[in-house]
């Protein structure tokens, strides 16, 4: 066993820890691990190029940018904020918890492309969350606004990750099934997916509690000190 390629992993950790540019870190780590495995430079370039071209799907986010850009230019974010500010019952925690529940339920039905950081969080959920938070704490400072936007993005991630695993045709379930089949254990997708339900409920409860605590913190900070 050749352990030297693990130096590539060490390069990633060191590079991120030193806050170097992630693009540089990743490419450098690839070369470290390639040289440690004894590959010639020409092979490494071909390997890097081929892996890069073969994984184009994550960049399809750019297809949503013309729509998002046009609507933002026409005031979508301003409108979303004004609308939420006018709904008297809408609080930050209600908004984010409803969004998380919707994301989990739709994810469990296989509808994961509804929502996402570019499609819904930046143009809609983040500005709505800020507007809703202003009702609890009218004088939000810049740091609080950043933490609210980060929480909106985190809520999208939690809702997505812990909903989609219940969907039996989802890649993770099929990956688990394929792995076991290759090792001589035969399972139905449904018998795997069903065990994702307790975690889905736990994720909802834990993150919802955190959102409520966050809002309580905003309220406490906003009250004048006695």
């Amino acid at each position, binding site marked *: 066993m050749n352990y030297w390629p693990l130096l590539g992993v060490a390069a990633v950790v060191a590079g991120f820890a030193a806050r170097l540019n992630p693009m540089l870190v990743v490419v450098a780590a690839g070369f470290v691990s390639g040289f440690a495995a004894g590959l010639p430079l020409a092979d490494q370039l071909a390997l890097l190029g081929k892996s890069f071209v073969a994984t184009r799907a994550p960049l399809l986010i750019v297809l949503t940018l013309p729509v998002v850009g046009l609507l933002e230019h026409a005031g979508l974010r301003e409108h979303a904020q004004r609308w939420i500010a006018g709904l008297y019952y809408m609080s930050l925690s209600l908004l984010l918890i409803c969004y998380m529940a919707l994301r989990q339920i739709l994810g469990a039905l296989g509808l994961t492309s509804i929502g996402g950081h570019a499609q819904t969080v930046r143009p809609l959920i983040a500005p709505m969350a800020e507007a809703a938070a202003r009702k609890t704490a009218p004088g939000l400072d810049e740091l609080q606004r950043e933490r609210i936007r980060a929480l909106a993005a985190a809520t999208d991630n939690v809702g997505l990750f812990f909903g989609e695993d219940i969907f039996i045709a989802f890649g993770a379930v099929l990956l688990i099934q394929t792995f076991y089949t290759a090792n001589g254990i035969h399972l139905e997708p449904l018998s795997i997916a069903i*065990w994702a339900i307790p975690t889905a409920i736990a994720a909802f409860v834990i993150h919802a509690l955190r959102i409520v605590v966050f809002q309580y913190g905003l309220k406490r900070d906003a009250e004048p000190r006695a």
Partner: protein
Amino acid sequence: MIALSYVWWLAALVLGAAAVFDLRARRWANALFWALIAIVFAAGDAILAADKAGNRLPTQLAGAAVVLMALLAGSGLLKRATVGDGDAEARTASAQRLGHKLFGPALMIPLVTTVLFLLAPYLVAGDWRLFPAGNATVPALALGCCAAVAFALYVTRSRPAQALRESSRLLDQLGWAVVLPMLLAALGGVFEATGVGNAVSALIGQFVATDSRLACTVAYGLGMIVFTVIMGNAFAAFPVITGGIGLPLLIRQHGADPAVVGALGMLTGYCGTLLTPMAANFNIVPAVLLELRDPYGVIRGQALTAVLLAATNITLMYFLAFR
């Protein structure tokens, strides 16, 4: 039929437009960066086909282009477009005029994508089908975006060139972060080809105390988290860690239920995804999209959820797998 290659060309068009606008604005480094990625996108299928046919020059050139992009990103020559707050008044006025009509195109992307995805098996006529079999999501998303652009142009009374100008503005704001997820996925491929996965699973196998159920369960859960944090992807970690700990120790030696081990092991890995900058499209890209000054702001926002949930998952696994 809407082949995948049309979708890549559409993405190349959006990226190429950014290169043209940057060229006009004399932001040379940005223009070069977007031109490189646009070419890789447009020529991607041809590059892969040439590689399969045994001609390695195109893939090597693509690799060199990736290195050049990384150098451009690391050099600091890429300029983040300044966020124009100058037209804030115009935006507020437009928001008041258009009102809820603005929500329509925004909701159209998910709606059209989902409807087309669900209808895909029925959109066939003889041998002709609208989407390639078994891969309807990506073309459906592309069509959904096209429909939404058309509707947005109608609602905002803009010319088509304006849509590309806006996407270019957003791309310059996002900068290299938008390419990072692709590069990380490529790193996963490089790690696999150079034997990093095998080395990790061999290492783990040497260090686990094997006769305690609890120790094996905890080692499996922590292994999934740590390896997901390193690879940025629970899918990459699952075969390695389950093959190294889950299958031989938990399932074969201690008789754990494989369905429980698989499902909860994967979900414990997801907790690792919430913690790592390597999962750039979930953790780093949104920080840029939401204009956070702290690049790890999203990770900080979800870290506590991830840790509590990982502990819950490992506990659940211990009690459910050995019922």
